[in-house]
């Protein structure tokens, strides 16, 4: 049985932990709102971009194979997995769920004798993957200095990825991130960045034949890097929102747990105190009786 003083110290320490988790929860809530707003502002662009690319891809079907970005990815050997995680921990299962998904994909590809390379965005994913797959790493993007994700960051990442693609370092690129479903639910998902697949969903416009200016190939070479940058941008934004949502939920739980712990410890403390008092009384009484 811990002494009264020990219990008192425990209670105080849990109380201060609760204060911290409470504060982190509130900070996460504020950041989540910002991240969600940013993601919403970026959505029209991303949607339109996807639409244009799918329109393009379906209307240039006749020249498919000519463009380096529009290869059919079925018989590729070299895979690049881009694992986007957070820079910080203390956000529940956020990072490990992405890593878990990526790991299962690595295992799947390895069993098919494919060559796998890994590029990580965010410190936490690198730390977790480094233990097992150090040899597969070809790059890492550090976001710790980026307070808000800008399109420029995404563009830099996409330029890196595209130049690696052009150098033949890999043939298929997949990106892993957490999709923001709601504040309490984030779904680890993956998305194929490259090559752009031709049989993407058709929009109503797919039957229209477009005029291209200057020409199809040049437009494709212009648009596809842009669309990749946009995809990465929206992935990073979703990830940022998910991270904050996840952290908020985790900290909310932690705050509640701390509260429960304090209640329990307080009861223990009161019981011990009462026991001590009773003990003392018994001693006095039995002492008096002995006289």
């Amino acid at each position, binding site marked *: 049985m811990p002494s009264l003083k020990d219990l008192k110290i425990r209670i105080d320490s849990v109380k201060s932990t609760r204060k911290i988790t409470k504060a982190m929860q509130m900070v996460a809530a504020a950041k989540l709102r910002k991240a969600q707003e940013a993601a919403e502002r*970026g959505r029209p662009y991303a949607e*339109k971009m996807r639409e*244009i690319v799918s*329109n393009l891809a379906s209307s240039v079907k006749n020249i498919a194979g000519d463009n380096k970005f529009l290869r059919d990815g079925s018989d590729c050997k070299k895979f690049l997995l881009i694992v986007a995680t957070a820079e910080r921990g203390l956000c529940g299962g956020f990072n490990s769920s992405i890593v878990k998904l990526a790991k299962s994909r690595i295992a799947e590809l390895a069993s098919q004798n494919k060559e796998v390379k890994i590029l990580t965005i965010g410190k936490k994913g690198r730390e977790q993957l480094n233990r097992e797959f150090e040899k597969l790493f070809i790059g890492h993007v550090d976001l710790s200095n980026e307070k808000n994700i800008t399109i420029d960051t995404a563009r830099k990442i996409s330029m890196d990825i595209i130049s690696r693609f052009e150098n033949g370092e890999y043939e298929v690129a997949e990106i892993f991130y957490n999709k923001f479903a709601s504040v309490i639910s984030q779904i680890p998902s993956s998305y194929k960045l490259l090559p752009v697949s031709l049989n993407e969903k058709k929009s109503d416009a797919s039957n229209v034949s477009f005029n291209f200016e200057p020409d199809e190939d040049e437009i494709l070479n*212009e648009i596809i890097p842009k669309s990749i940058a946009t995809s990465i941008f929206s992935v990073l934004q979703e990830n940022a929102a998910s991270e904050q949502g996840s952290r908020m939920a985790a900290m909310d739980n932690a705050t509640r747990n701390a509260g429960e712990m304090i209640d329990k410890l307080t009861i223990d403390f009161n019981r011990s105190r009462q026991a001590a008092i009773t003990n003392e009384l018994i001693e006095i009484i039995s002492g008096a009786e002995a006289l």
Partner: protein
Amino acid sequence: MTNKFELSIISAESKVFEGKVESILVPGMVGDFLVLSNHAPCISSIRPGFLEFSEGTSDKQRYFVSGGIIEIINNMVSVLVDSAVARDKLAKEDITNLISEVNDRLTAADTINKDDLGLRKNDLEEALKQA
């Protein structure tokens, strides 16, 4: 009354403009072109420069765009740009910054991209004169 059509200018970080317009003057990659209603479906890339459109009133609105894509389909025109700044809010420094950025990349880039970047720089310098 002339026919109007939908125009939306969207940058990566926000929606810049959305509404009905009469005409747009676009700085296309191979030359400026004017879009009126019932234009044939078309996709074109945009070089850095000034995009001009009128909502029907006599005064035209001008935006500086730093390159992007335009899609024209069924009287719906979507302009996707890296960034767009309204003419009256535009500071010359913005363009100067872009030019110096291109310059940095010019010195760093391999020879294949030099032509593209050089053209880009020319476009930007042209835009700077107009600003």
